[in-house]
């Protein structure tokens, strides 16, 4: 039975794995395009500050900078764990 399953199992082609990985990383890169160079550091330091008070995961923080006509808005989104 095991052998039959093994034979029937289709190996996932490496090219499609490559494509999926690229789609994710490229989407991530694009979301950072045009953002100032200090953003990754700002994000890390903000995370450190928050962690002094609450424990949050690495991916619990999202920041983005949007420019409008005459001002920029820094949006900070932190998901806190249920207390």
């Amino acid at each position, binding site marked *: 039975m095991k052998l039959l399953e093994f034979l029937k199992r289709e190996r996932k*082609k490496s*090219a*499609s794995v*490559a494509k999926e990985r*690229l789609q994710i990383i*490229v989407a991530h*890169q*694009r979301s950072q395009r045009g953002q100032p160079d200090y953003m990754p550091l700002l994000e890390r330091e903000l995370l450190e500050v928050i962690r002094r008070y609450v424990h949050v995961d690495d991916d619990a923080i999202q920041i983005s900078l949007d420019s409008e006509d005459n001002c920029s808005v820094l949006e900070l989104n932190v998901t806190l764990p249920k207390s």
Partner: protein
Amino acid sequence: MAKIIVVTSGKGGVGKTTSAAAISTGLALRGKKTVVIDFDVGLRNLDLIMGCERRVVYDLVNVIQGEAGLNQARIRDKRVENLFILPASQTRDKDALTQEGVEKILEQLKGDFDYILCDSPAGIERGAQLAMYYADEAIVVTNPEVSSVRDSDRILGRLGSKTQRAEQGLDPVKEHLLITRYKPARVTSGDMLTLDDIREILAIDLLGLIPESEAVLRASNQGVPVTHDASSDAGQAYTDTVSRLLGEEMPLRFHEMQRKSLLSRMFGGSRR
């Protein structure tokens, strides 16, 4: 007025210099007055691929620093009329390149040529930055391989933000995708990203597809750009690429696996 085209990629070893040499040769063969500039200061190689390494006297940095004139530094190609090479410096470091210097050289060349090709070094530092800064168009050389595709996307980001066109709010740099080292047999077996995968991920127009070819190494061994090897697959693929660059419609070739005939299987097949 010349069109300035940067040949770039981010990642090293994907075929920028081979492509810059082949495309500039192709443009000159089509009667376009072309100059190809090596921006890889400290690691010049374009001269070797173009087969003029023993005729280099002055280089890009000499011209920028006023030690030689452009006419002294540029090398006339021996095989094609209308083709010139401006080599990079071998001894200076990359900080010898200045933005003002590069701008001045390009301004001077613009009046004299139809096409100026800038062969960018790998990476995203000074040389690469200056090679793309004044570009009107960009040829992004990409291999069907994850790190190359990712780096190409990074370069596309910079073309859209760190060029003169982007900074001055002019029409954006026209981006072209050139896929090199493509192996149709591995694509068919599912172990290589397909042409359409790469197009979909990078979302730019395809300018050409160059198959992995023995002719490329043969060409660089001899210092004769592969475009001159008109019987080879890579030579023909570059010729098609040049036609598309000139605005002609060309059907895509060499992207599908060739079935070998019985005869060619028996006798080793045709020269590729």
